[in-house]
């Protein structure tokens, strides 16, 4: 059994959102308290985060967008591009540190210091488009991670599996025409849930055609449909693509206790998600996977689900 790395930094708490905003610093303190209480924290290899160099952000995001975001924070504006995207003066630095945490985790995995890693970072990333902030996301942590794997470590084929309850529009669009990154997402059906994309017929464009796969799940159908669709959609597509590295957009907001969605996935349902994905990872990349926190807003169930996820990571 290899070691599992863990990224967390006190500075992730400095991205303050408005009072009552679901994407709040308390999410991470709840996760840390939970992991400490379980005694899990001692078994993990701490990986120190470092702000990402801007050149890595630029592999995904437009330079004008990056500067606009930095400027909005410097001005002390309350939000960026939509009232959902609540910011403070420290948000830009924190977002750089979130990307940097993911890059450090990739380094640790690629240099065999750890077998796999979980990144407890915020702000989250999968809604962030190349030139637009959306749904609490500013820099697309996972997308930048995929480009980093390719450019820094000469990895050709990266698979991103996104099980946040919301479709990762940003990640999908960034790799729309790219056949070197396979994007799979399972999420609540876009007619009911944010951001309104991720329908089955969205499969990529031109040379990226067939390298995007979406499994929309109807409200209230979490346990049945996650089982069914992971087996029928993800498993065969993953095996056919045969990635060299896997990144996870790990969202814990599909849970029945989480008011942000209506899919009603149970705690056991999440175990099935973990098991299915980690079986694939074990067989293909020898267990190499970096999992990155996206959503998950119920402060009671979030730490439980993260701890379960990490336990399964450690058992790969």
């Amino acid at each position, binding site marked *: 059994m290899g070691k599992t790395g863990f990224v967390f930094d006190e500075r992730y708490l400095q991205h303050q959102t408005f009072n009552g905003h*679901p994407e709040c610093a308390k999410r991470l303190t709840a996760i840390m308290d939970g992991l400490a209480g379980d005694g899990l924290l001692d078994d993990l290899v701490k990986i120190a985060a470092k702000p990402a160099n801007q050149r890595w952000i630029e592999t995904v995001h437009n330079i004008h967008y990056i500067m606009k975001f930095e400027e909005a924070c410097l001005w002390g504006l309350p939000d960026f591009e939509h*009232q959902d995207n609540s910011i403070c003066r420290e948000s830009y630095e924190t977002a750089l540190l979130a990307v940097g945490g993911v890059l450090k985790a990739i380094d640790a995995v690629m240099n065999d210091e750890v077998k796999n890693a979980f990144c407890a970072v915020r702000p989250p990333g999968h809604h962030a488009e190349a030139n637009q902030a*959306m749904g609490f996301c500013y820099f697309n942590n996972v997308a930048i991670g995929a480009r980093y794997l390719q450019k820094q470590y000469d990895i050709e084929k990266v698979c991103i599996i996104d099980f946040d309850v919301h479709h990762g529009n940003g990640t999908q669009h960034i790799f729309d025409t790219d056949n070197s990154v396979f994007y799979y997402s399972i999420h609540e059906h876009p007619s009911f849930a*944010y*951001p309104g994309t991720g329908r089955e017929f969205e499969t990529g464009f031109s040379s990226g055609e067939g390298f995007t796969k979406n499994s929309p799940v109807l409200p*209230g159908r979490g346990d049945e449909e996650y089982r069914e669709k992971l087996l029928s959609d993800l498993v065969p597509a993953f095996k056919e693509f045969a990635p060299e590295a896997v990144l996870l957009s790990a969202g814990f907001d599909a849970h029945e206790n989480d008011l942000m969605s*209506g899919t009603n996935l149970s705690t056991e349902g999440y175990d099935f998600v973990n098991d299915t994905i980690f079986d694939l990872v074990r067989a293909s990349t020898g267990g190499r996977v970096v999992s990155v926190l996206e959503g998950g*807003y119920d402060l009671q169930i979030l730490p439980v689900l993260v701890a379960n996820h990490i336990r399964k990571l450690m058992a790969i």
Partner: protein
Amino acid sequence: MFVTEMMKTDLVAVNPETKLSEARSLMMEGDFRHLPVVDAEGKLVGIVTDRDMRDAHPSSLLDEESYQKTLDKVMQHTISEIMTAEPITVAPYYTLQDTLLIIGKKKVGALPVVDEEGQLKGIMSTRDLLRAFVNIMGIEEPGTLLCILVNEEPGQLKKIVDIAYEENVSLGSVLVARDWDTEKRAIFPYLLTNNVMSIKKKLLALGFELLDPMQWYLDQSPKKE
């Protein structure tokens, strides 16, 4: 919403003397299913559909040589011979609702829009109608659909809108449906946000019931005896 806001105005039109061959290539190039026919003054005199065009074609069962021979002959005919003269039209002040009902009732695929002088102003097709609905329902804007069960009494929607206002959230659209229970209504606000947590909490605190949309769907479906 008036047809002038939704209709297509960059039109390609033909005149009654236009050869079928020319009209055919215009339709194929522009991916049009309807070609308006106008006279020298720009007045609408007819419409040609892809169906009219197909009817004028020789049978596809003919061997290639006879097919081509007949086709060459047919394509020399003029539009006036196959067009529908005096087609059903609408005026620019017609509404989206009007055109929906007319298209359904008259079973046409497109309605030319003409002014009082008979001048062609635009064409409103079922494709344009579909686009208008995508727009009206806000389908392409990021948001979250809530399903709320309310009592059939005045002022319920106001409470919901007030909460959205308090939370500084914009509404993409609101649909109201009769529920299976005659005392109830189902309200579906499409909120242009990912942040529905506090809105849901406030709705629950006011005693509203948040519906599982699938349960609603199943209860609404015709029951098998």
